[in-house]
């Protein structure tokens, strides 16, 4: 086996991070995408732009600001400090929070597309059939938007696996705590360990390709959402 224990630890941590982040993103992204779909508030554009920011900003910029926020003098850092949790920078929790921000558009946008594709009519029909809005959301919206949920979950997971800049800024590449595959590859390359770098990099390449191939086979319409 060309992968040593630090490589395996990095892979494990990466999968754990991506799973936790994907779960959180579905919980946060669903109401957010629903609100963006239904609201007529002028804030819609502002929030939509904020959500999309990670698509265009260098990860280092997001990482930098999050680092400041999580630091001992940042608002988030003061809060966690007051709660006796210490600072979040260079911890797994900090990494999770940063990744949620960074991967948010990859979950929110497919969900929003799926919600918008449903249109208002099925909601109106459900209301005339005595279903409350909450009931309608679960019995009509979620099943009809299933492709959006699958696409969002896959993209959110894959994107979290693939992040590097934010991890480096927030996580600091600490073994078993914040060292994920992408930073491990970086370390291998720095140390001229090209063979090990190859295994991990090749693995990432295959993983990403298979995930996207799977997605586009399951839901060809998701190609539009992913490229937005």
């Amino acid at each position, binding site marked *: 086996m060309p992968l040593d224990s630090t490589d395996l630890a990095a892979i494990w941590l990466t999968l754990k991070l991506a799973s936790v982040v994907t779960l959180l993103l579905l919980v946060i992204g669903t109401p957010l995408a629903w609100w963006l779909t239904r609201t007529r508030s002028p804030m819609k554009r502002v929030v939509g732009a904020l959500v999309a920011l990670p698509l265009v900003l260098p990860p280092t910029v997001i990482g930098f600001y999050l680092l400041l926020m999580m630091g001992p003098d940042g608002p988030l850092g003061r809060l966690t400090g007051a709660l006796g949790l210490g600072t979040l920078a260079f911890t797994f929790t900090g990494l999770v929070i940063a990744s949620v921000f960074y991967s948010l558009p990859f979950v929110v946008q497919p969900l929003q597309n799926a919600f918008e594709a449903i249109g208002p009519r*099925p909601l*109106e*029909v*459900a209301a*005339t059939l*005595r*279903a*409350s*809005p909450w009931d309608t959301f679960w019995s009509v919206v979620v*099943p009809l938007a299933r492709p959006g949920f699958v696409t969002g979950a896959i993209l959110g997971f894959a994107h979290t696996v693939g992040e590097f800049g934010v991890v480096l800024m927030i996580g600091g590449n600490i073994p078993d705590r914040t060292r994920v595959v992408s930073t491990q590859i970086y370390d291998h390359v720095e140390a001229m360990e090209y063979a090990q770098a190859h295994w991990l990099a090749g693995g990432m390449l295959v993983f990403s390709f298979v995930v996207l191939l799977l997605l586009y086979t399951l839901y060809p319409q998701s190609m539009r959402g992913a490229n937005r």
Partner: protein
Amino acid sequence: MNDIRTRVRIVRDSFDLDVDLTLPGRGVSALFGHSGSGKTTLLRVLAGLERAPGAYVALGDEVWQDDANKAFVPTHRRGVGYVFQEPSLFEHLDVRANLEFGRKRLPPAERRFELAPVTELLGIGHLLDQRPGTLSGGERQRAAIARTLLSSPRLLLMDEPLAALDLKRKLEILPYLERMHDELALPVVYVSHSADEVARLADHLVVLDGGRVAASGALAVTLARIDVAGSFEDDAGVMIETVVSGHDADGLSHLAFPGGTLFVAKRDAVMGSRIRCRIHARDVSLALEKPRASSITNILPATVETVGPGGAPGQVLVRMRIGETALLARITERSRRELDIVAGRAVWAQVKAVALLA
């Protein structure tokens, strides 16, 4: 009383709806008007799907919207059924689950319909396990109507529900809709732009024109109003309630109405049964003397009441009275002048065609 009362005022750039209406709490009320007349918007306000600021909506003594008192009951608590213009089945559910959707959200004691009789009557019993995508347009709409009925609505709102159906299916569904409201005293508000559909189905007729109520009243009376008859264009004409009074050896049935008798091709109907007849204004011509040499069977003595615009250049509508019953005729302006058709003149109305409805 279970009257439906509504007061709505919506002013938008291209649209202006200003309506103050009371509809009877039983039977079918038709909202008739051309596209853009506001009939669908009005229906949506009744359902609570559209929240018109300042509106008032009530069913009997139950207030659904009264913005002056900050009252608004959301759609799902109004107990309204709504059949949309296009069949809107849930694509993620099979037909059976679609039909059960509203029904299962109702306490068993309040369910007034069983699945089997409704699916049988609408002819969709064999489709229950199919997905909506495999159904034809007519089948989808019949399933949507069944789904609405099964939710046991207290007020049934229908937005041109038959527009997507072929004539055969329409004629199949209509008697069921009629029977349903007869038996259950379920009020129905029915939007349509087909005068013939309205004449067949409605008890009460509201004519909307440019967002205003042009007329509202009992069907027969309103159809015969010369000031609104123009709205029906080529379909202008009266509806007469008749009673089967006999059958003769010539193969004709006799239909009596207050003021006379119509003779129509023999109907398989028992004596005393009620039949709605529709006589289009375009099918009625006038003569000053009783035509002796005419193949037309129905020639009735009438008295001219009013003459009004005919909806097309060179044409006029003439409203007559035969006993207690009103009749409309559309003739050319030239004929009117040459025959000197004015109020009070006695004429003979030649009825070329009588359409029997139900």
